[in-house]
């Protein structure tokens, strides 16, 4: 269906008859509603937690995001405060984890209904690895050098025992935020928000010389500024918004240079290499949105956003190998530009009390205007290659979603829909894919205590001819390959949900989902996928003082792919199967009414990934990739006085994992790859926290 037809259909739907809104109850005389019993308070109120805690063991995996990566003591600092003053002046201030490297402090204030101020500071500590080792010097900088004794022909010939140093890979984000909004009249609001973020420290990367590679540390010194301004209008039937946003990313490091740890006789000039790091970029976007209520039963809403991504960072040199005579580059920088257009139009109309129709049209476009040029190419600083022309990819995605829901009885509702998704890609193997999906759903209340919902869907995706890209990958891909995100595909999915109120105090929920993908036209590449899950939840109000919550989930994700070592018909198969089991229980208990509250949460997660690669030869199976978590949290709140409590918690977590990509792989295990010798994470950590909570 062409876009014009889709719009025509939406237009026809919008012309459907509408009904007159039902009159609301007459507004009463409220002049004598004094609200004398309303406990409206002015001034400051809130609570502050101050205390201390201890982490038993140092672990980057345990403290990956929570700030508890060090062993030893830490300060507890949390709070929630609010101010209510005359004339609707107010402040809400929230602080959490002030004693950790992951901390937040946010404040909102102003005069309610007139203007609002927002202030915030947030810090995120991301611990990536504390078991990695490297012989490189200058970690964290833009130039990595090697100590004496390098290079070596293989990792075995390198003086690793004397040169490896343990290092920590981590990133810290710091965000400062300021914002304001102003409501000069009832219907209008103007807002401004600005966020500045810095990211410091390091992350993993790698560099290679032909088949000799080294895992490297990339310096991270990123700065991102994000600013949004908006004006919005909210009238009786019309809501509208006009906004502009700009995001600017800067990287203090243009490139990472590293000394080649391998002696490569075939290319004696390949002494060091250089990786381009993330270039500075900008994104500007203008957005307009509106919603209009034609009647109580018919509504239309629309958004449109024009954006432009630009990137013009100076190119690094084609090679650091002084022995290679490289032709001049066609430009000193990319002058990269991609325009985006995102629009949607949604119409929903209740034709009758029982029947509602909706139609949604969505258009997303990334039009890459980056100039195409032929670039001289150097293969890993060793050999001159043939010049290559860049492929600035563009995408267009048009979706039409039509649906109807019909209330069959007071207890049963039916819904059905048709989704069409047309994607166009440039400079890729498939120019256009069309996916059509039909779905149906029934929600019914079997009895007063049992609700069930079942949804079934079937989708078919067909693409235009699968053809090699002129000037694309060299040497070419196997002609039997069908890249899975563009390949013809049938997808069947089903979802079932049952909620059962066993008693007034016990609620049981059950869910099952299944999705199956069939890429029957793909001889090479992904050929099938399947995702199945079962879950159950139980909430039980045992007594007025005690409540219980249990949950369990099992999910299996399986896929099959085929390849060809002979670059011909398929001669090997790869199977991947993830199995994820999670069980948890939580209990809350008012041990002493209005005095002591206690609780516990226990969660067990077992996840594994089984991989089989069949070539026809007798291969042993890959060891299972696995991760297991046992987590117990206990907490208590003991009220010493009306406004003072002692709060305490204990957290025990045991994590174990195995991953054959890392296990047994020391820095020098692979002859031609110098790795970090990183170990799979394992930890057993205890955390205790005690604090005094003061309420005011």
């Amino acid at each position, binding site marked *: 269906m062409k876009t014009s037809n889709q719009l025509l259909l939406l237009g026809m739907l919008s012309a459907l008859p509408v009904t007159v809104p039902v009159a609301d109850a007459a507004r009463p005389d409220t002049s004598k*509603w004094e609200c004398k019993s309303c406990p409206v308070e002015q001034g400051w109120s809130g609570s502050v937690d101050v205390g201390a805690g201890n982490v038993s063991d140092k672990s980057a995996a345990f403290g990956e995001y*929570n700030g508890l990566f060090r062993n030893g003591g830490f300060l507890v600092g949390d709070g929630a405060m*609010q101010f209510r003053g005359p004339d609707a002046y107010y402040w809400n201030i929230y602080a959490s984890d002030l004693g950790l490297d992951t901390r937040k402090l946010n404040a909102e204030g102003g005069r309610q209904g007139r203007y609002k101020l927002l202030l915030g500071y947030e810090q995120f500590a991301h611990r990536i690895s504390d078991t990695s080792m490297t012989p490189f010097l200058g970690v964290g900088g833009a130039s990595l050098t090697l100590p004496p004794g390098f290079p070596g022909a293989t990792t075995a010939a390198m003086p690793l025992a004397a040169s490896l140093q343990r290092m920590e890979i981590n990133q810290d984000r710091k965000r400062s935020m300021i914002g304001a909004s102003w409501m000069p009249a009832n219907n209008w609001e103007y807002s401004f928000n600005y966020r500045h973020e810095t990211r410091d420290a390091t992350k993993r990367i790698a560099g290679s010389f032909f088949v000799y590679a080294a895992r490297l540390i990339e310096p991270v010194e990123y700065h991102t500024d994000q600013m949004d301004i908006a004006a919005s209008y909210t009238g009786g039937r019309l809501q509208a918004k006009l906004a502009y946003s700009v995001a600017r990313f800067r990287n203090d490091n243009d490139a990472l240079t590293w000394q080649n740890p391998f002696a490569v006789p075939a290319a004696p000039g390949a002494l060091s290499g250089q990786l381009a790091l993330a270039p500075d970029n900008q994104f500007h976007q203008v957005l307009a949105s509106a919603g209009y209520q034609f009647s109580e039963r018919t509504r239309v809403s629309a958004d449109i956003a024009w954006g432009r991504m630009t990137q013009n960072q100076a190119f690094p040199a084609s090679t650091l190998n002084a022995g290679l005579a490289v032709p001049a580059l066609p430009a000193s920088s990319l002058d*990269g530009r991609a325009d985006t257009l995102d629009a949607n139009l949604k119409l929903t109309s209740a034709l009758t009390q029982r029947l509602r129709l909706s139609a949604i049209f969505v258009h997303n476009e990334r039009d890459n205007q980056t100039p195409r040029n032929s670039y001289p190419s150097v293969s890993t600083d060793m050999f001159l290659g043939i010049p290559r022309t860049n492929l600035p990819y563009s995408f267009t995605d048009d979706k039409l979603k039509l649906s109807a829901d019909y209330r069959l009885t007071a207890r049963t509702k039916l819904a059905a829909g048709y989704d069409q998704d047309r994607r166009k890609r440039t400079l890729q193997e498939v120019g256009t894919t069309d996916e059509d999906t039909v779905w149906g759903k029934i929600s019914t209340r*079997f009895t007063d205590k049992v609700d069930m919902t079942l949804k079934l869907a079937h989708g078919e995706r067909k693409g235009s001819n699968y053809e090699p890209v002129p000037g694309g990958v060299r040497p070419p891909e196997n002609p039997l390959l069908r*890249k899975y995100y563009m390949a013809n595909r049938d997808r069947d999915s089903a979802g079932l949900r049952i909620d059962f109120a066993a008693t007034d105090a016990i609620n049981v929920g059950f869910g099952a989902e299944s999705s199956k993908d069939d890429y029957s036209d793909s001889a090479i590449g992904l050929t099938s996928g399947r995702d199945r899950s079962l879950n159950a939840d139980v909430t039980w109000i045992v007594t007025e003082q005690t409540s219980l919550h249990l949950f369990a989930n099992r999910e299996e994700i399986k896929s099959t*792919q085929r390849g060809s*070592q002979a670059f011909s018909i398929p001669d090997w198969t790869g199977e991947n199967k993830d199995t994820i089991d999670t069980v948890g229980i939580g209990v809350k208990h008012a041990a002493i009414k209005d005095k002591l509250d206690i609780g516990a949460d226990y969660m067990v997660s077992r996840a594994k990934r089984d991989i089989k690669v069949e070539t026809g030869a007798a291969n042993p199976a890959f060891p299972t990739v696995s991760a297991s978590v046992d987590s117990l949290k206990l907490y208590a709140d003991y009220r010493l006085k009306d406004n003072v409590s002692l709060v305490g918690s204990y957290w025990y977590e045991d994590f174990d994992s195995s991953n054959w990509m890392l296990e047994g792989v020391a820095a020098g295990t692979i002859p031609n790859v110098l790795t970090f010798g990183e170990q799979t994470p394992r930890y057993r950590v205890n955390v205790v926290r005690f604090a005094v909570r003061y309420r005011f």
Partner: protein
Amino acid sequence: MTITKPLLAALLCGFALSVGLNTRGAAAADAPAPPSQGTAYTDNGADTCLMCHAAWPYPILPIFKTKHGQRDDPRSPFARSPGTPFAGLQCETCHGPGAKHAGSGDKNAINSHKPTSFLPPEERSKVCLGCHENNARTGWHASTHENNGIACTDCHRLHVERDPVRATASQPQVCYKCHRKTRAEYNLPSVHPVRAGTISCSDCHSPHGSTSDGMLVKPTVNQTCFTCHAEKRGPFLWEHAPAAENCTICHHPHGSVYHARLKKNPPLLCQQCHTVSGHPAVARTPAGLPGGSAGASGFLLAGGCINCHSQVHGSNHPSGVKLMR
């Protein structure tokens, strides 16, 4: 524990039977008068309601510490000087005319906003949208949540000092009530920091409606990801086509068994699309593990393909066509 076609067929039959029974029952039964709220307001507003509800087991008075309880905002339910049609009706702004309920004590004579209310979800949400259908909520109608019978108060709590769904650390627990599979995914070893309470679901998702897949806060997946991962925006000289199109082609947005939320371990992940004659086409078997018959393989271990092709999100290096510089 698999869902088989016979099971699905049985379930469909069960549903059909239920529909039939419900339809027949609805037609045949002597239908009692449906619950209704009435149209008369109380005589004294909140003072009438609080005669019973001030000491209610479910504490309601903290609402006076929230914006809804602000008396000096003309838009507020408790406004002294109402400035909008809905303002100043105190409890009855949200719960509707309460005279019938106050007189009878009948819980079906008031909009309790609870899931057990006699009012359907759309009627319960309509009250909220009367004031809040602005900015981010213009797309609520026909959104995924609205279509699935979710009412505003299924997620929001208004009588507490701080609504749990509006606080980063507590929001996921609210979402997990329905999104149970997602809770399990966030207990996997490679996740976004939701379990740590650092970010929450609404940093990426727009629960009040969005036309993007997955109800995202931005129009596309990648624009959403770039709000935190701006360094991957580009455009790059040498783009990796799936990375430029949609991050979820390779990454699972919630959690994965393997590093960086990748859907598969390299090299199998990469070999779904890269089959060039030579090393990309070779089946990597356990023979390449340490101690294996082929010796420890750099194509399989540590980063696998990433050991050399490290610039998988794109490269700005003139010699980076293979994403190796």
